[in-house]
């Protein structure tokens, strides 16, 4: 796919520019997450419109949806869901293939950088628009020497749309 390279290079250019502008690796991580969040809150509607899925029954279904349908639709790769906790509110999404990091090697000066942090923001933003507050963190990162990309997605709470009407007023 010709435009996949352009996508990878564009992302790389963004990260490099952020490192130049912000200097602190932690600031870059935060900015990537924020950018991801801004993308996620809009991307979710495109996902829902194009995939035509109905409401997920539980968080397990949500996670599978993200891994199998979401990642496929937007990054062209499928991920797997694993390591569920006892109440089904925390799991890992594992990517073996990641188009964002083609050709990338992290230099020593970038220790602590989560190069793909935009992805954690995207997931967090998207889920927030469907009433779920989550925490998304990196567990494994191949650019840091691990054997896969593993994102932990933890459901903090469901926040259904509240109408400001009280019966007893």
């Amino acid at each position, binding site marked *: 796919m010709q435009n996949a390279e352009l996508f990878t290079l564009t992302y790389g250019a963004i990260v490099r520019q952020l490192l130049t502008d912000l200097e602190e690796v932690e600031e870059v991580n935060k900015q990537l997450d924020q950018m991801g969040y801004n993308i996620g*809150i*809009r*991307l*979710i*509607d*495109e996902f*829902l*419109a*194009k995939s*035509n899925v109905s*409401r997920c029954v539980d968080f397990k279904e949500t996670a599978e949806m993200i891994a199998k349908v979401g990642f496929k639709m937007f990054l062209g790769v499928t991920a797997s869901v694993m390591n569920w906790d006892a109440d089904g509110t925390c799991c890992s999404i594992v990517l073996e293939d990641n188009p964002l990091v083609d050709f990338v090697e992290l230099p020593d000066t970038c220790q602590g950088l989560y190069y793909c942090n935009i992805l954690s923001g995207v997931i967090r933003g998207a889920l927030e*628009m*469907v009433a779920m507050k989550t925490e998304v963190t990196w567990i494994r990162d191949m650019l840091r020497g691990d054997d896969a990309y593993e994102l932990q997605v933890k459901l903090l709470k469901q926040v259904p*749309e509240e*109408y400001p*009407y009280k019966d007893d007023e």
Partner: protein
Amino acid sequence: MDTNDSLRVASLWHSMHAISQQLSPTTGCSEIELLEADTFDLHIFQSLTGTKFFVVCEPGTQHMEALLKVVYELYTDYVLNNPFYETKMPIRCELFDINLTQAIQKDRVALLGR
């Protein structure tokens, strides 16, 4: 309808939607999908993100749910993907308007056979 009228209708509907959820006689009912009046029908589609789309049409018009789904897709393509569109503001995206008009024209041709 100008922008202010649209906003008035939308906010009126938002309240009615909330009230109807509470008043629904059947359990598991989430929203109004269709309002049938003497001179018009009002179809509503609500996405899982809570965004609502309305279409007002002649009574008895068919395939409005399909049209609403098409409009939803156009919204995600031309409005949400436009980086200069501010969320929750009135939509002033030319590409959206053009494609929306085309979608409705196509629909009319299909329905009326001309």
